């Protein structure tokens, strides 16, 4: 009998738990430890943030599903890792603290044979002074509660605009190292679309602010893509969309302080500037959770497990951008020091950024962090689950399933406006996510046939179809496993 513990019940943790439960007999225990009571389909938060979808539509409670499927569930948060056990407990364990119910505040040693760390990121709002969701007129759509608050504020502003108020809207990234530009990109296009619907578009000045060097970087160093019969760069595609929508942009901006209606930022020229706004949605930086790890004698061994995020089979050697290789990226997401610990999704420490690092004249590193959200999270979680299943069934370590982001495709179906007949979407796929300059030297590291962009109503339908398909899959309804990650 093996016991697999999964920390986190987001896209990555839930995918891993559901595949493990499906393929392992009931002799083996699958236990999820998460402080959250609900599963949420995060990509649809942007529609909650414009009031076109209720947050109840993007979430469901985990406990009843897990009970029905035979997955153990502890609504608790991980505190620290003991991968060798301790003097009293010979099995490895994670010290966890319950967050609700009669056991609230109590700690438990959750022992395991295999551990999947799918804790995702900490939303590091404190990394930017004054960036607090719902304060200083700045909002977030990173969670459904944040998105609800964002819509309340945006709706109030729309009502003011209907009465004649001119408004400034600022959307983008709120830190020099933020990632998830895609979510902000979707949100700005949806907000612009909604202002048209409310007949107040001409009352608003909309500005994009981001840490990306050029538009369309998306933390992936931009991309060369097919668009219809043309080949264009992603910055040209996004410039075309923004100009057509009348959206201004500020790039290479490290937002470092938020005051009531004012964003302070530094640009790559080393200039310190401000941008005023009436409503802002800024994505924070992501960070690790600051977990500690101890050996059986309770000596601190945090550096064996964590480097901010969790250390996996990546090449973390410090080297200049010119020497970066697609081979630096992990393939199995296994911790090299403790082979029964894995970290798929956002929980693994990337070897470096994907975008070329850029330093301002004042020495500030203004580089988007690499994205690992959504599809890569699901794919890496599934391959980790499959390796664990194979290892249990074969009785020896099996790492046959590999999935480097340098050999994996991803689709970014970006909503550009909600509406069954009036909606729009920007569909972008990229293969691979991390450019492979050895394989594709003439097309900026990407397979041109598999890296394309498209704009139109079909993109909105696709995003909506994915919303329903992935919630169906997450609820583990019949034949859910046929839907790919």
């Amino acid at each position, binding site marked *: 009998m093996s016991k697999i513990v999964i920390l986190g019940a987001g896209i990555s943790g839930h995918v891993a738990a559901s595949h493990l439960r499906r393929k392992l007999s009931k002799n083996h225990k699958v236990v999820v430890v998460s402080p959250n009571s609900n599963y949420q389909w995060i990509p649809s938060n942007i529609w909650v943030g414009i009031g076109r979808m209720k947050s109840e539509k993007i979430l469901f409670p985990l406990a009843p599903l897990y009970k029905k499927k035979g997955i153990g569930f502890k609504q608790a948060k991980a505190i620290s890792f003991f991968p060798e056990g301790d003097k009293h407990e010979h099995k490895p364990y994670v010290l966890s603290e319950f967050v609700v119910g009669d056991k609230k505040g109590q700690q438990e040693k959750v022992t395991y044979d295999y551990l999947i760390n799918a804790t995702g990121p900490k939303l590091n709002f404190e990394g930017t002074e004054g960036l607090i969701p719902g304060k200083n007129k700045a909002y977030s759509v990173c969670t459904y509660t944040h998105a609800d608050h964002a819509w309340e504020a945006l709706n109030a502003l729309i009502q003011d605009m209907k009465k004649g108020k001119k408004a400034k809207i600022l959307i983008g990234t709120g830190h020099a190292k933020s990632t998830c530009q895609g979510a902000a990109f979707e949100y700005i296009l949806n907000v612009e679309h909604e202002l048209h619907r409310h007949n107040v578009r001409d009352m608003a000045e909309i500005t994009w602010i981001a840490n990306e060097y050029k538009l369309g970087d998306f933390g992936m160093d931009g991309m060369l893509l097919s668009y219809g019969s043309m080949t264009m760069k992603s910055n040209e595609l996004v410039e075309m969309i923004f100009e057509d929508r009348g959206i201004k942009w500020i790039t290479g901006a490290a937002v470092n302080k938020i005051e009531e209606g004012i964003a302070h930022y530094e640009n790559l020229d080393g200039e310190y500037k401000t941008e005023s706004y009436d409503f802002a949605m800024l994505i924070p930086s992501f960070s690790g959770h600051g977990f500690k790890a101890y050996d059986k004698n309770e000596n601190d061994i945090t550096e064996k497990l964590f480097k901010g995020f969790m250390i996996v089979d990546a090449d973390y050697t410090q080297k200049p951008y010119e020497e970066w290789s*697609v081979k630096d990226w992990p393939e199995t997401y296994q911790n090299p020091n403790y082979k029964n610990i894995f970290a798929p999704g956002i929980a693994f420490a990337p070897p470096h950024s994907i975008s070329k690092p850029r330093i301002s004249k004042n020495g500030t590193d203004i580089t988007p962090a690499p994205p690992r959200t959504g599809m890569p999270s699901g794919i890496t979680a599934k391959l980790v689950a499959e390796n664990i299943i194979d290892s249990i069934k074969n009785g020896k370590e099996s790492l046959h399933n590999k*999935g480097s982001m340098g050999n994996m495709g991803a689709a970014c179906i970006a909503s550009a406006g909600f509406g069954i*007949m009036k909606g729009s979407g920007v569909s972008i796929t990229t293969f691979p996510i991390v450019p492979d300059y050895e394989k594709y030297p003439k097309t900026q590291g990407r397979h041109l046939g598999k890296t394309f962009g498209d704009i139109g109503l079909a993109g909105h339908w696709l995003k909506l179809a994915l919303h329903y398909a992935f919630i169906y899959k997450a609820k583990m309804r019949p034949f859910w496993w046929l839907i790919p990650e």
Partner: protein
Amino acid sequence: MTERISGYQRFKMTNPIIQFFKFIYLSIKIMFIVAGGHGGTRKAV
């Protein structure tokens, strides 16, 4: 605001009949790209 997308392009982007076929095409194409497999890089030729 600069009109970067021509009227004809905009018509194609918003016409539900054209977009229905585009939806089918994109669904299949995206499925091939993202579900078409993944692997390692270190032993790749």
